[in-house]
């Protein structure tokens, strides 16, 4: 017991160290599900890294068309960023409500998160339609192809996240806080936080990197 156990929190040392690793049995399903979803998120980020690499390589190839400095409006992007950042925060508050198993705050924070996410998506769709109307469509240049692929893939993730949130609220309403529902909810929270992290890369490299 004097040897430090690398997988035990200091406070819970006495209990866990009494059981040898070989006799602890399989990890509980909450740990396995969350860890598996964490691995999926990391693989999703690796996929985004490919799109970021493509954008970084192609950003200067505008084929005589409009470049980023001409197309992007930083105030508009700051508004989008604020929507997504605050939705990530309210999603965290929803996670706390789920851990307390209290339904009303869960619904409340879910609605706020959904509205902020939908606002972000609406702003993005408006930006895309404006760009296409100005002749800056994905087919205009390699730069614009890479831009729409990268930012569009992120937007698609947000869209799927919103659909997932609606499905989860329906499950909370019909099934209540069953262990499997709570597991899915916490996976959703991780997914939503991950989208915000990817967005930090997008606004830094795509929008602020253009000059």
């Amino acid at each position: 017991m004097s040897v430090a156990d690398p997988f035990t929190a200091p406070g819970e040392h006495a209990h866990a160290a009494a059981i040898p690793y070989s006799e602890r049995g399989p990890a509980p399903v909450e740990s396995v599900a969350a860890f598996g979803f964490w691995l999926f998120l990391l693989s999703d980020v690796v996929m985004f890294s490919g799109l970021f690499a493509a954008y970084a390589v192609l950003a200067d190839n505008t084929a005589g068309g409009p470049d980023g400095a001409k197309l992007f409006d930083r105030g508009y992007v700051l508004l989008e960023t604020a929507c997504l950042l605050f939705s990530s925060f309210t999603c965290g508050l929803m996670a706390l409500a789920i851990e307390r198993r209290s339904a009303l705050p869960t619904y409340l924070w879910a609605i706020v998160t959904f509205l902020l996410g939908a606002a972000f998506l609406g702003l993005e769709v408006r930006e895309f339609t404006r760009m296409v109307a100005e002749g800056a469509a994905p087919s205009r240049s390699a730069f614009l192809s890479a831009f729409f692929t990268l930012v569009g893939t992120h937007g698609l993730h947000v869209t799927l996240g919103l659909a997932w949130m609606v499905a989860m609220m329906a499950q909370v309403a019909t099934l209540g806080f069953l262990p499997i529902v709570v597991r899915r909810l916490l996976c959703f929270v991780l997914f939503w936080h991950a989208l915000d992290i990817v967005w930090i890369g997008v606004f830094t490299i795509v929008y602020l990197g253009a000059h």
Partner: protein
Amino acid sequence: MADSPRTHHAAQGQPPGIERSQRGSVLSYLTGLAFAIVLTLASFWAADTHLVWQPAVPVLLAALAIGQMGVHVVFFFHISTGPGDANNFLALAFGIFVVGLVIFGSMLIMSNLDANMPAMPMDQLMKMQR
């Protein structure tokens, strides 16, 4: 027998996203939000400022972005280098390694190819586009 999920977590490692001390959770999210707002505004300020030597601006932006990602990982994902987080942290480290390889590897290879490619006359380029 103390067989609650919490002691299981202690024995098998903490899943990501779970705050260990329940009391500090709201405070943790608020701290993360405050840091994130400051870093985001700093990024948007840095992109427009003339106070900083211009070639250094991309480096400053990258530093601010990496800092903000770190803030999100610590305060929103609750991933730490603590003992219960060994699996999550190792996976994260591997993810960062692969992302770094893909992005910087692609940029290095493509800029190297670009620099070593003989310049092509414009009319020939136009022919290739058709």
